[in-house]
């Protein structure tokens, strides 16, 4: 049996990692997955692997699946307003299906 869940994806600079993770956990995310990357946005381009003298600006992609859609939306909104007015980054939501909603 599959149950609907909401996935919050956050793309930001590595230097925000600790704060973002803390925020996620406070807000009640039971887990999250992080992958490293690079990218380009309003601000500037970041190499994904080759030596970057400003590694701390390289991109991380955090995704957290939540059973409750409201919580997910709340988190996304908090992060958008709390971080991405000042710092560069992106947050978006998508709908997924999971098998054991109790663990998300």
């Amino acid at each position: 049996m599959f149950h609907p869940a909401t996935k919050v994806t956050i793309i930001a600079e590595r230097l925000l990692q600790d704060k973002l993770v803390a925020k996620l956990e406070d807000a009640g995310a039971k887990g999250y997955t992080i992958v490293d990357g690079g990218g380009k946005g309003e601000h500037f381009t970041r190499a994904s692997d080759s030596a970057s003298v400003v590694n701390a600006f390289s991109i991380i992609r955090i995704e957290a699946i939540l059973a409750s859609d409201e919580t997910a939306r709340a988190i996304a909104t908090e992060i958008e307003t709390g971080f991405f007015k000042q710092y560069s980054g992106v947050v978006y939501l998508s709908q997924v299906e999971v098998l054991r909603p109790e663990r998300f």
Partner: protein
Amino acid sequence: MDLILAFGSSFLSQLRSPTLAFLIGGMALAASGSKLAIPDAVYRFIVFVLLMSIGLDGGMEIREADLAALALPAVFAILIGCVCVLIGAATLGRLPGIERDDALATSGLFGAVSASTLAAAMIVLDEQDVFFEAWTPALYPFMDIPALVLAIVLAGVSARKDNGAEKTQVSAIIVDSLRGSALSALLLGIAIGLIASPQQVYEEFYDPLFRGFLSILMLIMGMEAWSRLAALRSVAHWYMLYAFIAPILHGCLGFACGWVAHELVGLSPGGAVILAVIAASNSDISGPPTLRAGIPGANPSSYIGASTSIGTPVAIALCIPIFTALAGFVFEQ
């Protein structure tokens, strides 16, 4: 006149020195669109080894060093760091079309210190058999931290003026910059050098790798310098001007202090050059993240472009030979 000659020859020898060749080579590679890239993991390892090596050597020597002779240069380092930032704020900050935040962040970077430039200077002095106290590189944090802190604090002040932003805690910034990977490695090295006896591992491992790892770091710096130029072009041209002049100016300031320290507490000529070069250098590793977090309003393209694309090459290619030559000239008699 002799000075010109002295500088000329030192400059030429510097040109033939691989250090610079690798820097320029890196630029050439980036310019030619080469796909060669040094993996990030390797880059971080190289920086670690260089700073650990500097730290170990410094730490082992500080044990023997007489702390009085050490104190004055340290005080000078702190002063230079702050003065450089104030100069930047008072000049770059006043120019038309320059955001206050951007100006402060840039001044902060140019007040702070570059590990790669420092390492390059050490190798050049070494190549020219100019002696320097192994603890002088350990002056790094004394100049680096005050510069970053001051820049962030000033930015905070003006931010509060505009929109009552909350007060910036100095301590928090200091801790944050001490935690940066570059400074942690340096300080850990110093601590181990002071407490334990890492002589053997230093001589067998860290020291032999120094020159080679530096050559690769120079290559990376060159590539970065070129690839950030694009970003730099997109911002006000004043940054280029500042990035060209500031290192030389700061270097002179540092050299003057070095001269005073030479007269008062007998700092070696080589030590004076080191002081001049760290003053001339601008932070390209530890600084940016700290500033990024501390002055989020500032646009990285401006300060990183200015520092990596112009500041560092100028510091390495011009300031190192200038001040080495100057030392040979001034401290002759």
